């Protein structure tokens, strides 16, 4: 099923992020004997079992010991190998934060971190399992690139692009499945933002799971005769600053929508860029300095305002303040 929003062909199918991760790693592993997959007892959540089945000598199960997990990856990278390290986004970036900073990034080792069950996609596992600050943490680490892909096609492209990019990267993986919004012709590039629509009333900025929602909101705004545009930022760092500044100039108002704390994530990023270059009014939808909930994802989406209705409402409020 296809329809068109803001010039993009949308494909309304749901795809498993686990299957995408596993298949893409196998695809990479087939071509490159230096690819490794590392796990901390959450392989069934990331999907790397497919890789383990095919390449058991390049799949490492390191148990519930995330600091060692990241350190071992650093050692592999020191030998010129390309390790993909997966565990839940919060355990990876919080438990092993110092190892990510010191063992990986300070050494500029070529390690690919994949934070699974990112943000509220962890669903009813409860607040301990919901990463609210993984983007803020990774974003301020020198040498680190940070990605939050919008669907599984883009997730696949991000995994592949990371393998060709020298240096540490952090990629978010939603629990999924994710709604497909890009077809195979989508050209993902690290550092590039993607603009949908040319509206001059307001800019929406999204990443990860919030992009499909923002696309729905864009359609609703169009129906209400509000001329909006959407910037999808699958790469949070390095961010496509030019695109954000251009849209700030064109619309004079920005609403960011992020599956993360509003502190230090997408909202913080856009505020930093805009305030230094072309200040416009900004508001953010996200977790407002709080934890995720012990509730399913649908409940949390509504609770934190990740709804078309809320995006439309906030957009109107921002436009009124211009």
């Amino acid at each position, binding site marked *: 099923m296809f329809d068109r929003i803001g010039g993009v062909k949308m494909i309304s199918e749901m795809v498993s992020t686990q299957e995408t991760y596993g298949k893409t790693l196998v695809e990479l592993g087939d071509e490159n004997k230096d690819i490794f997959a590392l796990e901390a007892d959450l392989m069934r959540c990331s999907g790397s079992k497919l890789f383990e089945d095919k390449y058991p000598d390049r799949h490492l199960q390191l148990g519930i010991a995330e600091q060692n997990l990241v350190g071992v990856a*650093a*050692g592999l990278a020191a030998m010129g190998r390309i*390790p993909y390290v997966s565990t839940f986004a919060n355990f990876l970036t919080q438990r092993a934060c110092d190892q990510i900073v010191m*063992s990986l990034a*300070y050494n500029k080792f070529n390690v690919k971190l994949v934070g699974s069950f990112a943000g509220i996609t962890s669903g009813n596992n409860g607040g301990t399992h919901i990463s609210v600050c993984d983007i803020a943490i990774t974003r301020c680490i020198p040498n680190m690139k940070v990605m939050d892909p919008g669907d599984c096609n883009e997730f696949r492209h991000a995994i592949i692009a990371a393998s060709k990019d020298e240096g540490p990267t952090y990629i978010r993986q939603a629990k999924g499945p994710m709604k497909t919004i890009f077809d195979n012709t989508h050209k993902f590039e690290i550092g590039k933002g993607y603009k949908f629509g040319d509206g001059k009333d307001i800019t929406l900025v999204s990443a990860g799971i919030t992009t499909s929602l923002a696309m729905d909101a864009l359609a609703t705004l169009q129906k209400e005769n509000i001329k909006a545009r959407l910037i999808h930022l699958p790469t949070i760092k390095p961010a496509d600053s030019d695109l954000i500044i251009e849209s700030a100039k064109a619309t004079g108002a920005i609403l960011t929508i992020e599956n993360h704390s509003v502190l230090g994530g997408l909202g913080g990023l856009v505020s930093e860029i805009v305030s230094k270059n072309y200040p416009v009014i900004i508001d953010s939808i996200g977790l407002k300095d709080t934890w995720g909930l012990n509730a399913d994802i649908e409940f949390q989406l509504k609770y934190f305002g990740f709804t078309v209705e809320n995006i439309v409402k906030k957009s109107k409020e921002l436009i009124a303040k211009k």
Partner: protein
Amino acid sequence: MEQRVEKLKKIANEIRINTFHAITKAGGGHYGGCLSLPEILTVLYFDSMNVDPKKLKDNSRDRFILSKGHGGPALYATLAARGYFPLSALDELDVPLSKFPKHIDRLKLDAIDVSSGALGQGLSIAVGMAISLKQQKKPNRAYIVLGDGECNSGQVWEAAMSASKYHLSNIIAIVDNNTYQLDGPIETVMPLEPFEKKWKSFGWKTFDIDGHDVKSLINTINKAKEEKSRPTVIIANTIKGKGISFMENATYWHSGTVSKEELNQCLIELEELK
């Protein structure tokens, strides 16, 4: 053998003296933990490891991690002695933006395989190196020197567990067991005993030796090289601050600055080492 041992003892003492002068010229630093290292580093760089200063990035070289990154000055003095760079380069220790920071930095100095400074992280990196070598069936090894103090850290034991799981007999770890850490003796800060038993229980082959005995270091590392199924740890018992009497086994000299009067005494004692 005896002749070789004598030669290495002499080199170790030169390294000790050069380390002292480098730290002193820099205005002070980690005397204690640097002066316990020279024999260990000398044996590694002049006898045990397959390294060549002329083939810095040769893939077949052994890899080395100084996990106790504050031992940087002693490593720099060792590398200079081994011909990686001239001795005069030690004058650049702690000079702003130089290649020789207190804690080693691989992006500044080519001879360094891994930057360190945040303690407790090196052994995990050695595990990754050793897994890579083993997976490619390569004969080279990952050598690592840990401080005893950093063995307070849980990550060291996570790494120990994983080295054992993957039967990484290509890891040779040496603990510079100088029994002091920054705030005092290990036994008061965080007791590690029974230290050797801990390693054994994690599945490691262990040795407990005098870390200033060059001959013993050579022989023990040679024995470790014969091991086929387990990683090896050598608990090298050393004296923190060795060579300067008032620095030996003195908590203050983990890191400090020598006064003019103290410097005179140091110079006399270092002269006796020659």
